Structure formats: structure tokens, C-alpha cells
């Protein structure tokens, strides 16, 4: 019973994360700068991080990246998302330990590190000079979306009953 409940819970979380990834694709943020996204799936990552800990959050995140990549993307996008996602989750886990930050600050740190992670992966392909131009825009977008996503997560997390 306990194990089946856990499977259902994490399965539902994974499904939600995948849908978040799909919704993001339907709402293109068109600022002419590649790499700016809402980061909706981070709501799921945050809820899992706070309710179940680092490893479950990481597992669902990786599974989500792989599935969304297979369904809607390509190998390259999987690579970029994996780098950004793992870095971002690690940073969020560490930030969460600091009492000065609420889930909003953790979300901002996650969004910023996610972008830096993706930028670093792109650096290998197109070089540092091209990539550095996007950094300020990505940072500002990350702070704004991270803040909003964090606020959303703070409301959702009160209503989620974990296993």
C-alpha cells in the first residue's frame, strides 16, 4: 500500500512536470533572446524538494527532462536541460539550508543557476564571446520568473499532501 502510494504520488508529480514543460512550449516568451523560459516545471521541483528532499526531486527532474526531450525536443535540448537542471537543483538544495531565504529565494537561486548551467553548456558549442552577451538578460529574466515561480510554489506547497 505504502509503496503503491509512493509510486502514484511521484508518478503524478512527474506527469505534472511534463505538462508544465508542454505548456511552456505553448507560451513562447519572445524577447529575441534564446533561453528565456517560464520554468513552470520548477514548481514541481520545489514542491518535491521541500516535501520529499533532494533525491526524489532530482529523480523526477531527470525523468522529466528525458521524457520532455524525447516527446518534444532533441538530444541537444536534453543535454542543455540536464546540465541546467542538475546544477539548479543542487544550488536550490544548498540555498534551502540557509534560513535567510524562503522558497522564493530558493526558486530565484534555482532559476539563475539553471540559466548559468545552460549558458555554460551552450558555451561549448558557440564559444564564450557569443554566450556572454546573453548573460545579463538571462539573469534578469531568471530573477523575475524565479520570484514568481517561487511565489506560486509557496501557495501550492501548503495544499500538497505528501506520502
Amino acid at each position, binding site marked *: 500500500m505504502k509503496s503503491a502510494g509512493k509510486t502514484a504520488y511521484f508518478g503524478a508529480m512527474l506527469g505534472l512536470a511534463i505538462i508544465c514543460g508542454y505548456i511552456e512550449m505553448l507560451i513562447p516568451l519572445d524577447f529575441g533572446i534564446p533561453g528565456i523560459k517560464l520554468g513552470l516545471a520548477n514548481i514541481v521541483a520545489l514542491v518535491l524538494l521541500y516535501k520529499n528532499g533532494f533525491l526524489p526531486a532530482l529523480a523526477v527532474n531527470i525523468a522529466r527532462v528525458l521524457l520532455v526531450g524525447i516527446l518534444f525536443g532533441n538530444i541537444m535540448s536534453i543535454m542543455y536541460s540536464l546540465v541546467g537542471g542538475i546544477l539548479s537543483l543542487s544550488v536550490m538544495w544548498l540555498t534551502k539550508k540557509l534560513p535567510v531565504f524562503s522558497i522564493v529565494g530558493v526558486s*530565484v537561486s534555482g532559476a539563475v543557476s539553471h540559466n548559468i548551467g545552460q549558458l555554460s553548456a551552450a558555451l561549448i558549442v558557440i564559444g564564450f564571446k557569443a554566450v556572454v552577451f546573453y548573460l545579463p538578460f538571462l539573469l534578469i529574466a531568471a530573477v523575475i520568473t524565479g520570484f514568481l515561480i517561487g511565489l506560486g510554489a509557496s501557495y501550492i506547497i501548503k495544499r500538497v499532501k505528501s506520502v
Partner: protein
Amino acid sequence: MVKKGDVMLSISIIILAVFLLTVFFFLKTDGKQVVIKVDGHIFGKYSILSEQEIEIKTKRGINIVKIEDGKVSVSQADCPDKYCVNHIAIDKTGETVVCLPHRIIVEVVE
């Protein structure tokens, strides 16, 4: 519930980003030429002042680079993500527009 630390962190990062933008703004120079690289090899070099459309046909697809008004952009492409087409037009040295699926880099050089 937003904590003071959250706001401090957000403001610090924004200040950092604005600082970078300011530095870039003063360092950037107007470019003179456009270099198009396909798969790492130079496809062509063009003056940024001569208005023209360049079609790049690879086995992965087609991109059309447009040089107009001293700026360069990708006006059309049949790649799946269209990041290159949606990118703003560039004109400063070092700026690039990249089509990753088609392995095309459009760069402004001096």
C-alpha cells in the same frame, strides 16, 4: 511569505546584470562584416553595409540571412525551434545569431 533575504538576493543579481549590461554597452563596437559559419567552416564573409539576402542550404535545412540597415538577422529558417528567426537583429562586433539544429553561426566581426 517573502523574506528579506529573497529580496536582497534578487536585487543583488539584478544589479550585477545591469552592471554587465553597462560594461557591454561601452565595450561594444559597430561591426563591419558578417561571417557565416556552417559546421565550423566559413561559409562566407559579407559587408554589413551591403543590403542582401543570403540563402544557406545544408542537408539539415534552409536558413535565409538578411543584411539590412546595417544589421543582420535570420529572416527565414525551417529548423524546429526557430530561435534564430526570432532573434533580434545584431550589429555589434562579437554578437551572434545561432541556428543550433542546422549548425549555423552568424557573427558580426570588425
